[in-house]
C-alpha cells in the first residue's frame, strides 16, 4: 500500500482547559472517501480544521503527502475546504468565486476562464457565471462552494457537513453526486458529518468519534456488522444491547448473564467474569413464545409500529429499556402484552468488551 496522503500522529488539541482531541492517530489513504462521524462536540470538525490549517494542534504531527504541515499557514497547504455555511464571497459573482483560488495565485486569465468553465460543467452550473450567491438556492450555492474548492486541484478535499443546510431530498441527491465527483476526480475526500446514514452512503471508510477519540475506524459494512464499542453499536444504525458478565464458556460459546436474563455469544477472547455487551441488530433479533436453549432474556410486547420500510415491534424489557425487532412483514402470531423470549444466531451477535460501570446503562 502506498504512503497515506494524510497522516495524523498523536495529535492533542486543547481549547483552554478543554481537551477536545485526545492522542489521535489517523491515516487517510490516497483517493479514499473517509468520513469522520460523531455527535456534535466529538472533535470531528476540529480535526478537519487542523488539517486545513485553521486550528493548531496542541501536540502531535500532521502530515499531508508526507510533508509536515503544522507550521504551514492555511494558504500554503494543498488542501481545500467546503464549508458548512458555504462561505461564498457575497460581493463576487459565481464566476469570481470559483476563479478566486486561481486569481490569488496569479494564473493567466485565459487559463482561469478555461478552468472555471470546466468546473461549472463539473457541478452542472453552466450559465450561472454572472449570478451573485444571494440569488441562488442552497443546493446551487453548495455546488459553487464545491467548484471553488476543486479548482485548485487539491490533493485532499475537506468537507465540513456540507449538506447540513439542505432538505432531505436534495441532500440525498447531493450525496450521490458528491460520491460520483469523488470517484471521477479520484481526489481524497475527508468528510465530516453527524448523519450516520450519510456516512454509510458515501464513505469508503468511517471513523466513528466520541469525546475526541476515534472509537472505530473501518468500512461501513464492518462498522455495522462488528461495532467495536458499545457507543459505535448504538450510534451506527439501531442496536439491541444487553450487558452483563460472562458466567460460563463452553465449546467456544460464552453465556452472558444480563439483568434481563441469559444470552449467548461466540467466546472469542472473552474470559469468565468479563463484562460483555451483547449487540444484536433489530432485523436479526429473533423471538419465540417458549425459551430457547441457552437463552432466557424475555420481555412484553409493548408496541407495534409501522415505520414505512419496516414493521417495528418494541419489547419492554423493564421500565427503561425496550428491545426492538424490525421485520419487513407484519407478524400476526403475537399481540401486545404477550411475553416473548429473545434469541439469536451466533453469527448475528457481536460481543463487545465493556467496563463494570457500563452494565446498567
Amino acid at each position, binding site marked *: 500500500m502506498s504512503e497515506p496522503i494524510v497522516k495524523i500522529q498523536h495529535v492533542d488539541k486543547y481549547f483552554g482547559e478543554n481537551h477536545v482531541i485526545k492522542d489521535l492517530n489517523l491515516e487517510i489513504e490516497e483517493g479514499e472517501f473517509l468520513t469522520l462521524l460523531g455527535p456534535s462536540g466529538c472533535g470531528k470538525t476540529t480535526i478537519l480544521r487542523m488539517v*486545513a*490549517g*485553521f486550528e493548531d494542534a496542541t501536540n502531535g504531527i500532521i502530515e499531508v503527502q508526507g510533508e509536515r504541515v503544522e507550521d504551514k*499557514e*492555511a*494558504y500554503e497547504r494543498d*488542501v*481545500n*475546504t467546503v*464549508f458548512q*455555511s458555504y*462561505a*461564498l*464571497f*457575497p*460581493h463576487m459573482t459565481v464566476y469570481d468565486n470559483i476563479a*478566486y*483560488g486561481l*486569481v*490569488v*495565485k496569479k494564473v493567466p486569465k485565459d487559463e482561469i476562464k478555461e478552468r472555471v468553465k470546466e468546473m461549472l460543467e463539473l457541478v452542472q452550473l453552466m450559465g450561472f457565471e454572472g449570478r451573485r450567491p444571494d440569488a441562488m438556492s442552497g443546493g446551487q450555492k453548495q455546488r459553487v462552494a464545491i467548484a*471553488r*474548492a476543486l479548482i*485548485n486541484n487539491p490533493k485532499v478535499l475537506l468537507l465540513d457537513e456540507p449538506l447540513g443546510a439542505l432538505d432531505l431530498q436534495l441532500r440525498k441527491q447531493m450525496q450521490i453526486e458528491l460520491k460520483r465527483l469523488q470517484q471521477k476526480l479520484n481526489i481524497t475526500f475527508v468528510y465530516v458529518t453527524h448523519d450516520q446514514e450519510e456516512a454509510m452512503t458515501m464513505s469508503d471508510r468511517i471513523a466513528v468519534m466520541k469525546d475526541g477519540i476515534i472509537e472505530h475506524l473501518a468500512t461501513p459494512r464492518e462498522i455495522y456488522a462488528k461495532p467495536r464499542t458499545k457507543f459505535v453499536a448504538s450510534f451506527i444504525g439501531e442496536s439491541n444491547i444487553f450487558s452483563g458478565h460472562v458466567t460460563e464458556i463452553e465449546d467456544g460459546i460464552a453465556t452472558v448473564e444480563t439483568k434481563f436474563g441469559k444470552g449467548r455469544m461466540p467466546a472469542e477472547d472473552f474470559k469468565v467474569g468479563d463484562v460483555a455487551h451483547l449487540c444484536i441488530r433489530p432485523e436479526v433479533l429473533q423471538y419465540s413464545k417458549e425459551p430457547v436453549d441457552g437463552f432466557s432474556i424475555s420481555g412484553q410486547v409493548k408496541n407495534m409500529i409501522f415505520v414505512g420500510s419496516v414493521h417495528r415491534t418494541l419489547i419492554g424489557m423493564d421500565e427503561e429499556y425496550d428491545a426492538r425487532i424490525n421485520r419487513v412483514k407484519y407478524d400476526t402470531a403475537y399481540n401486545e402484552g404477550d411475553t416473548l423470549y429473545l434469541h439469536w444466531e451466533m453469527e448475528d451477535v457481536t460481543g463487545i468488551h465493556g467496563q463494570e460501570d457500563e452494565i446498567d446503562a
Partner: protein
Amino acid sequence: MRRMKNAPAAATAGPVSIWMIIFVMAPMIYVFVISFMTRDPYGGIEAKFTFENYTEMLQPLYLKVILKSFKLAFYTTVICLLVGYPMAYWIASKKPSTAAKMLMLVMIPYWTSSLVRLYSANLLAMPNGFLNTALLKLHIISEPLNLLYSDTMVLMGLLITCLPFSVLPLYSSIEKLDKSLIEASKDLGARPVQTFFKVIVPQTMPGIVGCIILVFIPALGMYYVPDVMGGGKVMLIGTLVKNQFLVTKNWPFGASMAILLILITLAILWIYTRFNKLEDLEVV
C-alpha cells in the same frame, strides 16, 4: 377608519416634522434666499437679487481657502481611515464585553468638551510644552519646533475631533464580517494581504464609506477647530462662513458659502447612494 389608522404615525412623526420644519428647513430656506441678496453698507441685507455672492467665491483668495479645506479634510479622512481601521479591527477581534469597554474608551474623550481637548493639544505643542521639551531632552531636535497655529496643528485638531466618528462605523461593519469568508480566502491560497484587499475591504465597505462620510463632511465645514488650532491664521471654509456672519457682517456672502458646503455634502451623499443603498450605511 383610514384616518384612525394613520393617527399613531402622525402623533409620532408630527412633532419631529414640526421641529424639522422650524429649525432645519426654515433656516436653510432663509440662508438659500439671502445668498442671492446684496449686503447693505451697515452689515444688513438688501433685498436686491444678485449672483455676485457666488461669483465672488471664484476669486483666487477664496478658491485657495476652498482648496485648502478640501485638502485638510482629505488628509483627515485618510489618516482617520488608516488609524481607525486597524483600531476597529483590533477591537472587533476582542470578545464582546472587552470590545464594549474599549469602545467606551474611544468615546470618553469625545464626551469631554472638544474645546478643552483642542486647547490641551495646543498646550502640548507649545515651544516649552511637553512635546518640544521631550524632543529636546532626547536630542532629536536642537531647537523647539514652531508647531502652534499651523496647518499641521489644524490637521491634528481635525483628527482629534473626528477619530471617534471613524472608529464606530468601521467597528460595526468589521464586527459583522463573517469570519468564515476569511478562512475560505486563506483556504483557497490567498496571502493575508490578498485576503485583506479582496475580501475584508469589500465586505467592510459600508463601514469605510460610513467613516468617510462621518469624517470628511464635518472636517470640511468645521470652524472652531481652525480657529483654536490655527489661531486665526488658518482660514478654511467653515471659518470663512463664520467670519462673514459674525465678523465681516456680510451675511449674503456667508450664506452663499454655506450653500456651497451643503451642496458638497449632498453631492457626496448622492455619489454614495448611487453605489449603495442608504440603509446599508454604517453609522452605529
